[in-house]
């Protein structure tokens, strides 16, 4: 039943000093798949990873790698199957980045760890893949945290593993390198059949890159499945116990808590023109209403998260009388109306736009 999986856990319970932290973990992963662990800070993602890379002994249950129990694999064999990128800070003295990458060849070198020509070639390729060749000769300690992280990825790759385990690998990286880092993993999983397990805090990235997502919550893995299954129905807000703000599962965007109260401003918006205005009003602490938006409008997610009231209509439907009436009522109640969109941009079907704009102008708002 579990054939075909490169890694799976069976009834895995992990914890410290005999006290279970997370119970009965059932994860499975095929070759070439990417599994991401998500969950709040301190949920135990790192602890699970540490059990998978055998840095901790499971309290009960097993981890199987390549069809064999993890406990029965020798250290040397394991080092050729699995490499890691951890959050642990490495401070090797007087080592260049290239030398740090080359430590990945350890499982393949002889008694005294002397690199062969082939080893050097692989080190070079790994560094090119992660684009760190330019600072190959720099002292590792003197590089930035982001650069260190990329060096550690090159190191993990040059170990030529079948699976890489990464603990919050993108934390110190800027946007460009976050994407680059994950693209490299995606490429390698497709082209070399590399399996990847990692923990991520960036939910948007987790949703985009993962084949499987496991949500760690409380003392168990609450959900395990494809991103489509997990990122649905407001589950993320529940997973993180978010009491303020909101998370949009389709776009992956976070919004701060909406300002409550009777709307003081009405924002006439659509087609993405309103989002920046909504956020500004939120910053200034002004409750507002907005409309009229189709539910598939670009502005709709932010409007729903931030506005006191949104006048909305079904996607691709006609503007109906009720909505226009409701919008007029709201304009009546507001002291100001902000027009976020140019009238020219309102197409044939947004006829209500001109109507409302005139209505507001007529009231001197």
């Amino acid at each position: 039943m579990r054939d075909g999986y490169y890694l799976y856990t069976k009834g895995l319970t992990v914890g410290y000093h005999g006290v279970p932290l997370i119970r009965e973990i059932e994860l499975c992963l095929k070759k070439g798949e990417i599994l991401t662990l998500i969950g709040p800070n301190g949920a135990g993602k790192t602890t699970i990873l540490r059990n998978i890379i055998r840095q901790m002994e499971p309290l009960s249950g097993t981890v199987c790698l390549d069809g064999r129990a993890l406990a029965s694999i020798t250290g040397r064999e394991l080092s050729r199957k699995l490499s890691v990128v951890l959050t642990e800070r490495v401070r090797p003295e007087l080592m260049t980045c290239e030398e740090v990458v080359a430590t990945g060849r350890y499982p393949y070198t002889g008694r005294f760890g002397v690199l062969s020509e082939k080893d050097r070639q692989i080190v070079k390729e790994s560094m090119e893949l992660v684009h760190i060749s330019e600072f190959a000769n720099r002292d590792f300690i003197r590089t930035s945290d982001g650069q260190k992280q990329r060096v550690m990825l090159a190191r993990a790759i040059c170990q030529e593993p079948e699976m890489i385990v990464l603990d919050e690998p993108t934390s110190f990286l800027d946007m460009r390198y976050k994407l680059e880092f994950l693209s490299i993993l995606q490429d390698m999983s497709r082209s070399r059949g590399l399996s990847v397990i990692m923990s991520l805090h960036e939910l948007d990235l987790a949703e985009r890159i993962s084949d499987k997502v496991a949500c760690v919550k409380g003392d168990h893995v609450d959900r395990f499945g494809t991103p489509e299954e997990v990122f649905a129905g407001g589950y993320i807000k529940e997973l993180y116990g978010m009491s303020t703000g909101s998370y949009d599962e389709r776009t992956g965007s976070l919004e701060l808590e909406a300002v409550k109260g009777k709307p003081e401003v009405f924002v006439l918006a659509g087609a993405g023109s309103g989002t920046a205005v909504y956020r500004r009003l939120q910053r200034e602490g002004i409750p507002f209403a907005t409309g009229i938006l189709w539910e598939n409008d670009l502005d709709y997610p932010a409007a729903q998260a931030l506005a006191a009231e949104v006048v909305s209509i079904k996607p691709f439907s006609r503007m109906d009388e009720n909505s226009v009436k409701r919008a007029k009522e709201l304009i009546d109640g507001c002291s100001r109306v902000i027009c976020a969109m140019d009238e020219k941009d309102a197409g044939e079907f947004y006829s209500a736009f001109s109507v409302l704009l005139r209505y507001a102008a007529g009231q001197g708002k």
Partner: protein
Amino acid sequence: MKKENRYRLAYGTLLLLLLLFLALNICAGSVSISVSEVGRVLTGRGTDTVFSDIILQIRFPRALAAAVLGGGLALSGYLLQTFFHNPIAGPFILGISSGAKLVVALVMVAALERAVQVSSWSMILAAFAGAMISMGFVLLMSRVVDQMSMLIVSGVMIGYICSAVTDFVVTFAEDADIVNLHNWSKGSFSGISWDNVAMLSVVIFTASLCVFLLSKPISAYQMGEAYGQNMGLNIRLFRVFLVLLSSVLSACVTAFAGPVSFVGIAVPHLVKSLFGTARPILMIPGCFLGGAAFCLFCDLLARVVFAPTELSISTVTAVFGAPVVIFIMVKRRRQS
């Protein structure tokens, strides 16, 4: 290939210093013997039996012992620094030398009272037992305190306690031989015979060879335990080896020369700067050569500066070693 030239140059320098100080140690001393006379004695054409006795029975074995023990001591320090990931760890500062000294003193005093001769082997064994006791205590402390500076402080305290007890034992033991014991407990290379040299060489060279064979695992361990383990290193077993080897090395030194301060910290640091790398495969032979040259140099000063009065070896090593430690600490503070 500039790097390799630097390594060659570094080894050349160390070797040259070693030979230079070895020669000086044989030539210089409280009895002045001309260089040509030394040459004649060494080539077996010496005419004066007093001179040849001084050179062949006193200075030569003493110089060799200083070299071999110095090398062992530097290696022991290097291993402890690797083990604790701390550049100012060393057998003296962590109280390991003092632990060895205490047990050796106890054994020697007990033997003196019963008028039994203590063999070199039992001295080494006693020192090893003492080193392991201190090491055990330091390891225990390292589990309780997670701050490295606290570990060092507790090591220094262990050292003081052991030294105090040793002083107590030595002061109240009644024998003429106690003068020797007193010198030894302060640290000195004096009174080493050819038999001693043979024995300590066997122990130190065997242990050093084992250390050299461990150079690959040491390089993995330098990346931290988590990564080391992922590279297939058996951390637990490796740590046992490190503890045993560093204890054997420092115990052997203590058994023959008493506690010698700062060599274990200063030499690895200086050698690292000289080579510009921390690769174990280069560092291990480098530390050995450096330690040997450093101890020969210090012993030379100890014997010659206030001749015929002899300084204890630790006095001299401290003068040169302690500033290095201060330098390391300042540099580390600036880095972090």
